[in-house]
């Protein structure tokens, strides 16, 4: 930036020394100041001139520089095109962020510099870094608004959470896109989570009366710290008795208004897996007996896990290594040993006397009494 003091005949005033104010004004309307901040706002002329090799301005726009001396004399530069600086911020949005399998989500990535100036003509790469789904372009160039748009599509029959990434040379951002599965009344449906194929939902026919969207989330995918804290509080009350990371969030929302469906018309079966790689009957990494595992639902009011007893099964399937449970509605679910008074493994647990001894006529009648007790016990645990 060079400022020269001149006379009426446009000759440089070589004997002039003094300070001038430097201002940025709009190139389109000189009566308005520029919307950015100028770095050098005062300059001292010596022998009628001054040169500043570095001048800064914070807004990417068309401006002119205007100087004013102590006598109110002014001078205006030519138009200066101020471009964006180095990218320091990248934004990524997905609209909508929750889709039904088969639908698409509109992705928009936006680049800005330190001062919030949008950066055009800059390459942004897109990718799906976790989960499933396809983006229609792998990269694009930012437009005048500093944005690149792309379409994310998800066509699996399993619900899941995909992590979509937008990246430049030195910046990246990731956002989740939740994909649900459509369930239509009158049909049956079995779905598994993409991130954990052993987590399964089975809907009988007529379980719902209108179309619903179904999704499954693992604990790592839960989207709010409030919920995670809630779960951690509930987990802390049952330390050693539950598999704390095995939390699943099942959701069923009405397609019509996106509200929760609530209670199903028929019980829906859920399956949550456990690990027992050496088949010793103890859940890996815990002292929990596999035979004692039950499914439990989070009571968000009391912040406690409550064993599910919705009128169907709630039992271990050691062949499939899952806990199967029939539920009336969706919520947060986990599995654990919710009845054990001790954490010490005891293979004989459960062989307790149910009723006092009675006199029977013949072995068969005595055994039938015990079968009746066994049946009652099974029913009570459902």
């Amino acid at each position, binding site marked *: 930036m060079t400022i020269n003091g001149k006379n009426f005949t446009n000759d440089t005033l070589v004997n002039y020394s003094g300070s001038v104010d430097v201002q940025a004004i709009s190139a389109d309307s000189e009566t308005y100041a520029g919307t950015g901040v100028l770095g050098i706002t005062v300059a001292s002329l010596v022998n009628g001139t001054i040169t500043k090799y570095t001048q800064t301005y914070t807004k990417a726009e068309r401006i002119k520089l205007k100087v004013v001396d102590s006598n109110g004399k002014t001078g205006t530069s030519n138009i200066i095109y101020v471009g964006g600086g180095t990218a320091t911020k990248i934004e990524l949005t997905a609209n909508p962020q929750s889709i039904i399998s088969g639908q698409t989500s509109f992705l928009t990535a936006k680049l800005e510099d330190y001062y919030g100036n949008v950066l055009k003509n800059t390459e942004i790469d897109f990718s799906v870094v976790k989960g499933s789904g396809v983006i229609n372009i792998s990269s694009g160039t930012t437009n005048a608004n500093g944005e690149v748009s792309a379409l994310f599509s998800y066509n699996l029959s399993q619900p899941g959470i995909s992590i979509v990434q937008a990246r430049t040379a030195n910046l990246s951002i990731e956002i989740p896109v939740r994909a649900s599965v459509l369930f239509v009344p009158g049909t049956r449906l079995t779905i598994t989570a993409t991130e954990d194929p052993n987590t399964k939902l089975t809907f009988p026919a007529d379980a719902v009366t209108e179309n619903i969207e179904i999704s499954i989330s693992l604990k790592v995918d839960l989207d709010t710290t409030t919920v995670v804290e809630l779960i951690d509080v509930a987990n802390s009350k049952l330390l050693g008795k539950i598999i704390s990371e095995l939390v699943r969030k099942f959701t069923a929302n009405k397609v019509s208004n996106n509200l929760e469906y609530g209670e199903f018309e028929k019980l829906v079966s859920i399956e949550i897996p456990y690990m027992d790689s050496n088949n010793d009957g103890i859940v890996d990494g815990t002292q929990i007996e596999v035979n004692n595992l039950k499914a439990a639902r989070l009571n968000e009011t009391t912040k406690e896990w409550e064993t599910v007893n919705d009128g169907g099964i709630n039992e271990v399937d050691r062949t499939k290594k899952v806990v199967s449970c029939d539920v009336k509605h969706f919520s947060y679910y986990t599995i654990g040993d919710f009845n054990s008074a001790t954490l010490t493994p005891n293979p004989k647990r*459960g*062989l307790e006397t149910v009723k006092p001894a009675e006199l029977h006529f*013949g072995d068969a009648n*005595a055994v039938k009494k015990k079968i009746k007790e066994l*049946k009652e016990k099974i029913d009570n645990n459902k």
Partner: protein
Amino acid sequence: MKKMTLTILILIFITGLTWSQEQAVKKLSVTIGNPWFGLKYDINSRFSAELRDVVDPDLNIPAVKGYYNFYKGSKLTGFTGVGYGIISFKSEDVTGNGSLLTVFVGSEYKLMPNKSLSLDIGYSTINLKSSNYSVSGPEYIFNIGLNCYVF
């Protein structure tokens, strides 16, 4: 499965024992009771062995019983003993298996030269299991039967 195999082996052993002794003693009887059907063999004047199974559409309890005859009169015999049975059951509601261990005391009264009435009462521990559920506990069992001596 192991229990079943073990039981079969025990039954085969005892059966073989009784048949090998039969030639000397010849005191084999068919026993019929409430409701069961069995074979009892008097090994000697003090000891007897019996194989029996209940007669019931929902139950199967093959059992072996050993008797010690602590009193032997002309018509009355007093005995005590122990029995072990393997239980399997199947109904519409529940299916499973288990075991029954009984100690008992009773008497046998000779009605005719080849027929006698047997009464006993026992204290039994019954274990049952179905899927992941199980129950266990004691019961008292009263038995009445008719022994028909065939050899």
